[in-house]
């Protein structure tokens, strides 16, 4: 089952890539087509997905996984969703506030249960990262469009 899924996903990706390459306009006379490499790569990927699907039909039994695997996968998908929300929050609230919220959440996902530790992370994580990257290295911090804690602190 897993081999079928992998082959099908690859086939879908390659079909999408083929369609994308096909959208590239034709070359001007004497030039080479800008879509030639993506088109060739997508075609080769489609061929490989065919090989994978063919291999899947020969397999008699697939591995089904277990509860532990699906539990870990759910936890990772959860962390990925947190990552997506966290990076999007930079645009809305700048760096400090999202980091102050994300730090204890991620620490607790990884098993930190100390309340003092989690509380400290709310202050220390944004402070230390801010000092290293935005003060010492001089990177311009992302500005929060809705509310920016740094601007508020700086008055």
């Amino acid at each position: 089952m897993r081999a079928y899924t992998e082959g099908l996903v690859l086939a879908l990706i390659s079909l999408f890539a083929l369609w994308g390459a096909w959208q590239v306009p034709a070359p001007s006379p004497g030039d080479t087509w800008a879509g030639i490499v993506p088109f060739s790569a997508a075609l080769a990927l489609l061929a490989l997905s065919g090989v994978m699907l063919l291999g899947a039909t020969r397999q008699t039994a697939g591995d089904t996984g277990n509860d532990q695997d699906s539990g870990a996968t759910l936890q990772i998908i959860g962390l990925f969703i947190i990552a997506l929300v966290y990076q999007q929050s930079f645009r809305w609230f700048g760096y400090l506030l999202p980091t102050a919220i994300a730090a204890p959440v991620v620490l607790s996902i990884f098993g930190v249960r100390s309340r003092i530790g989690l509380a400290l992370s709310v202050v220390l994580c944004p402070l230390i990262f801010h000092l290293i990257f935005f003060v010492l290295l001089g990177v311009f911090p992302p500005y929060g469009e809705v509310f920016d804690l740094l601007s508020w602190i700086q008055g």
Partner: protein
Amino acid sequence: MEIFPALLSVITDPTLLFAIVLAAVVGMVVGATPGLTASAAIAMLLPITFYMSPIFALAFLYVIGKSGRYGGSIAAILFNTPGTAASAATQIDGYPLARAGKAGKAMKVATISSIIGDLMGDILLVIGVGFIAAIALKLGPPETFAIYFAAFVVIGSVIGNSIVKGLASALLGILIAMVGLDPISSEERYTFGSFDLSNGVGLVPLMIGVFVLGEVFAQLDTRRKATDETEENESTEDGNSLTWEEYKPCLPHALRGGFIGAGIGVLPGLGSAIAAFISYGEGKRRAKNAEMWGKGALEGVAAPEAANNAVSGPSMAPLLTLGIPGSTIGAILLGVFLIHGIQVGPTLFLTDKELVYKLFACGMLGILAYGLIGYFGATQVARLILKIPTNVLYPLIFLTAFVAAYSARGSMFDVTVMTFAGFAGWLMRKYDFNVAAFVISFVLAKGAEETFRQSLLMSEGGAMIFVERPIALAFIIVGLAALAFRIRGIVKERRIARGGLEDA
């Protein structure tokens, strides 16, 4: 001869020396921490190098890579958990030695052999790189494309368990690299009207995503499955010291391992794990005490360790002379060159020769630095690693990945790319796709496309140019032969396995 003034220049520069020693320590700790890799550490530190001088940045990351390779042996010998894939071969004899109370002795053999192998690799690199660059200057676009082709096929097919998945990973890397404006005609490809996508997918966020965030996701998976605690094996009084009489039989294995590692290092994509296992197998085949190998032979530590570390220097040769990274660390170092506007390829030896030799000098001093720290303090490093709370470490790495991706160009789009790349990196690991092939192909794709289309223009549209030119044809044959050998090897393994099952 350029290496001697370069060595003198580095020795007299206290900031560079500090960077080398710091990198040696960081690399060793990272390499020895199970689950953390030198690639992840280098990818995470990559954006910081924007704010450093090119030589400082390159030396720092290059030495982390070298020291990280060695650091893997600490975890392999002392904790029975290889810190890197390459140190799995060291574990075979290293851990039984540690169990017998000879952890200190095994670590000293690993350290000396690593120094021998790494120095051999670097010396061969210094001698050979100029010749390779001179030849590379004479190659035309069809020959260069043929080399790229061979690299894609070797990287895709040789590393990992599945050829199909390896090649698919390489093709996915190529497709992702195609996003953005075509550098020749400025036509948009896979941009779907997005301005952010028209600038393409950045190397730095992709690396941080795949190697750093992807690793954090993978660790979450591993932590759920892990059941036992890691314990350090203590040395007895006698098991901590190493005499010349004890190391003497190891020396031929270390020297042979050095040559094996250096030879494999030049070939793009093969990497130190393959070198270590070949050296171990070859050492065991030639050993007088072959029956002891696997039960705690010091020679069984020396052979893979020398080969593993000897890969480091020569793997820089295809990167510096052709712009083809031979390893993931090479691919990240290519990013540093690009960040600082240095064009990698045969002309590098005309434009930035001094920088290249200074980098080699830093590498050699880095070997001495990790050698000294490792010889006298490997067990202390191991104790330090046991004290690192991983449940705090990985969340901190998670948070660092975001700010590091943002710092590279101050772009929020890069942070988004990094997040998706992280998830994709974890998916690739979970489903046994080849992350290294994906990243290296992403890096190679632009150069390969450029040379491919230049060749087509030279031949007015005909692909026969790659067959008509002998050097190009030879490299294409090399690529296809590597693929054929790999298929043959897998078929043979399956036949043996099937035979074994039938016998049972």
